């Protein structure tokens, strides 16, 4: 804060000084339009790479190895048993399902291992559950736990704990964002309403076997049910229906079953872990691990050796600078998200598909998202990230920048240029009211879009909102034409298309899209799902209920001494961290 004592005491802009900070916060505080939701993936630490094995296998596939480890700062050299990773802002609510910030999610992902995890392609993989069965009708899921599972205090982990966890999430006082209660497990509603003492669809078959019966099939159920497990003895001791406040007291003292155990949380500074000797896959190689709170730019921490691992936008300059450092390995990575411009389909002009296509042709996405970003992005044309198993561009239109085509489409749609160069139809001007929240790229977007839309006779009036919350509330009010967003982390391809069927995008109602969405979810056969998604992507790519904009590209830079490091697009560090080793 600008602590100009007198100036502050006196007249001028006290408020100005108060909020200047936010200004600098642009980088992290309000960065991604997805706000809280994407926090989990946009933290400095969490995240992923397209090819998780790249680093560990020593494969040169994209990884740039450190050129000169002798340049490693002394601070980092002296660390022999400890790995430090930056994380924006963990707050201390480390109980899975209960944390409100994605950063706390990052912390708890090392403390807990889910029953079913996902591999680098987002496909289910055994975690605490050794195997699972799905009934013919795709309604009953049965999980077989590994033998001799233990919580980090040595107490046994059984099906009872799983049942307790599932039940707890159906409590009416539960205020987290877990998806499990939305699966409609049999008896879940009754439990929530207080009409039943247990959730009837949850059955503990034996201490190692548990099943859940759904009321309708859902391809994501396996991963959702196969989440983290809370100890009944620890978290269930004081549980009474409708009373969950007691759990708040346990947030800072989590009892987990993951690779690491929380040693100490120093608010605003560090989360310290030690290896969990009871971890089912064996005690992790690095005895100690620390998440260091570090907001915004982390260059200085990487350069001085205060952290071992940091993420950067994959701009040419960043990569060059990282190469010059010499002591870091550089791992390229594409997150599982995609960016898009939400269109207000309740506004007359945008109801016309030709107008939507014209705007897409008429917007130089290559310049905005790739060139101006120095290569730290890629133009998107379908609602899935290139790292997803469902990703395909086959049969889709890439909509290259083509103002001629755009003009042509607008002419066809009946929008003729008026005397001032702006297109009109029925006496109404073709004007686009854009909403965005403040971030590093918004200036570029507005500058280029203004020029682009000018060239096709579309009036462009931008508005910027200071944070994501303010933007969302304006968008919810419906007073806009285009708004810039990015999805949260997408594990299953269905999450990327959900917004086209659940009414999120108002005014878009295509039965064909709904049918394809349901069909893709009605089976767990990957190949069949792939085919359905291809058809769905083609349809959405043609209809353009939103304008797909870009995929982000980032790089992870880490201390060259760390071996076996990989980052999964879906689980971040947590799956490979137990194997990390300091050379």
């Amino acid at each position: 804060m600008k602590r100009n004592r007198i100036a502050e005491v006196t007249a001028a802009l006290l408020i100005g000084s108060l909020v200047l900070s936010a200004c600098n916060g642009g980088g992290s505080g309000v960065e991604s339009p997805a706000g809280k939701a994407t926090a989990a993936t946009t933290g400095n630490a969490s995240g992923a790479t397209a090819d998780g094995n790249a680093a560990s296998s020593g494969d040169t596939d994209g990884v740039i190895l450190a050129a000169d480890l002798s340049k490693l700062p002394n601070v980092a050299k002296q660390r022999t048993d400890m790995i430090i990773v930056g994380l924006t802002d963990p707050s201390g609510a480390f109980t899975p399902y209960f944390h409100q910030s994605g950063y706390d999610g990052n912390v708890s992902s090392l403390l807990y291992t889910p029953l079913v995890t996902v591999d680098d392609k987002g496909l289910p993989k055994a975690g605490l559950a050794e195997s699972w069965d799905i009934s013919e009708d795709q309604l009953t899921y049965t999980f077989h736990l590994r033998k001799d599972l233990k919580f980090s205090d040595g107490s046994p982990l059984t099906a009872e704990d799983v049942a307790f966890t599932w039940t707890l999430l159906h409590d009416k006082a539960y205020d987290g964002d877990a998806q499990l209660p939305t699966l409609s497990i049999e008896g879940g509603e009754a439990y929530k309403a207080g009409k039943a003492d247990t959730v009837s669809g949850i059955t503990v078959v034996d201490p190692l076997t548990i099943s859940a019966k759904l009321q309708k099939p859902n391809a994501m159920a396996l991963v959702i049910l196969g989440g983290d497990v809370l100890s009944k003895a620890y978290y269930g001791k004081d549980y009474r229906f409708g009373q969950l406040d007691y759990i708040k007291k346990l947030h800072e003292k989590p009892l987990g079953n993951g690779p690491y155990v929380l040693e100490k949380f120093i608010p605003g500074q560090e989360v310290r872990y030690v290896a969990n000797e009871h971890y089912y896959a064996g005690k992790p190689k690095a005895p100690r691990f620390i998440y260091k709170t570090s907001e915004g730019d982390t260059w200085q921490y990487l350069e001085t050796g205060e952290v071992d691992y940091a993420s950067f936008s994959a701009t040419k300059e960043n990569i060059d600078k990282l190469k010059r450092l010499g002591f870091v390995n550089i791992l390229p990575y594409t997150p599982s998200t995609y960016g898009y411009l939400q269109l207000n389909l309740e506004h007359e002009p945008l109801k016309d598909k030709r107008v939507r296509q014209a705007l897409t042709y008429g917007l130089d996405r290559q310049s905005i998202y790739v060139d101006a970003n120095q290569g730290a992005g890629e133009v998107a044309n379908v609602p899935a990230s290139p790292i997803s198993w469902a990703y395909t561009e086959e049969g889709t239109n890439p909509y290259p920048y083509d103002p001629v085509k755009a003009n042509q489409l607008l002419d066809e749609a009946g929008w003729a240029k008026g005397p001032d160069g702006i297109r009109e139809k029925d006496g109404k001007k073709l004007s686009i009211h854009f909403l965005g929240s403040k971030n590093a790229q918004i200036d570029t977007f507005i500058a280029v879009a203004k020029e682009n839309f000018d060239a096709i006779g579309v009036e462009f009036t931008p508005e910027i909102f200071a944070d994501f919350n303010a933007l969302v509330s304006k968008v919810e009010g419906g007073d806009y034409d285009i708004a810039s967003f990015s999805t949260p982390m997408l594990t299953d391809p269905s999450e990327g298309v959900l917004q086209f069927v659940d009414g999120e995008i108002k005014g878009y109602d295509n039965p064909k899209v709904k049918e394809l969405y349901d069909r893709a979810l009605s089976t767990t056969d990957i190949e069949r799902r792939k085919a359905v998604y291809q058809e769905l992507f083609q349809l959405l790519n043609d209809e353009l209920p939103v304008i797909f904009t870009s995929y982000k590209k980032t790089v992870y830079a880490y201390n060259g001494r760390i071996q076996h490091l990989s980052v999964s697009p879906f689980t971040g560090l947590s799956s490979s961290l137990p194997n990390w080793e300091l050379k």
Partner: protein
Amino acid sequence: MENVDSVKAKAIRTGSRPRRRSSLWSQALQQLLKNKLAVSGLAVVMLVAIVCFAGPLFSPYTDNKINMALMNKPPSMQHWLGTDKLGRDVLTRVMQAGRISLTVGLASMVLSVFLGTLLGAVAGYYRGIVDQVIMRVADLLLTIPGLPLLFICGALLSDWKVPTDYRMYIVMLMLSLVNWPGLARMIRGQMLSLREREFMQAAVVLGLRDRRKLFYHLIPNLIPLIIVMATLNIGGAILSESVLSFFGLGVMPPTPTWGNMIDAANNMIDFQEHPWLWIPPGVSIFATVIAINVFGDGLRDVLDPKMKR
């Protein structure tokens, strides 16, 4: 003891002022012109203003055309101060930015100083119930957090469809409306002390009217303080524009201002690798601030009744 002496001396001097009031301002002007430092300060401010307002007329890059091929190029013969991340000419943008930054900086300073002085002086002079009302309102305003206020303001202006070009001025006005308490308190404090001095007792004995006492005897004594405060605030006011832009309340990109140009240096890469992005706006703000302050100092010297020797 010392106080009493000084006050007496002052009372005598100030008391004699109204008689030669007619020539006061021209005298001050003459003295000001003799102060070389102050004159050069004024000259620099004028120069900056002229360059900013007239300069772009001679630039071939005023259309701010985007050219990705010229991204982040260092200064060259074509682009004297280099280009920014969209290949736009930095020199042209600095000049265009100056138009807005200068206007905004000066306007917001004048406005808050005016309000603060007026309310503070009135409160300090009349005391009692007037003072209580003004100062308690000030207390209330001081407790209000700025952040939600700006957000609400942004939302309202957006809902009312105020053109983005005008929003900044409305917000500046609003900021002055809530920001006067600080200066007002200071002026009031000074006023409370001044009005008890002997020269004021003399003024009372002479049966002068309130307005006369306030404007001819008290406010001139506050001028040094006001000038110091005003000139000190100008830098902050110029920078505060970038804060407003951040909340979507300032100018819209691609329109440049010094504040939002210097914000471009808010990351290590640009800070280290592209100094031509932040040095020009930084130097512009610095030159303007220092010139205005030097001029303010000179002005203060000639207007301060206590400085006449």
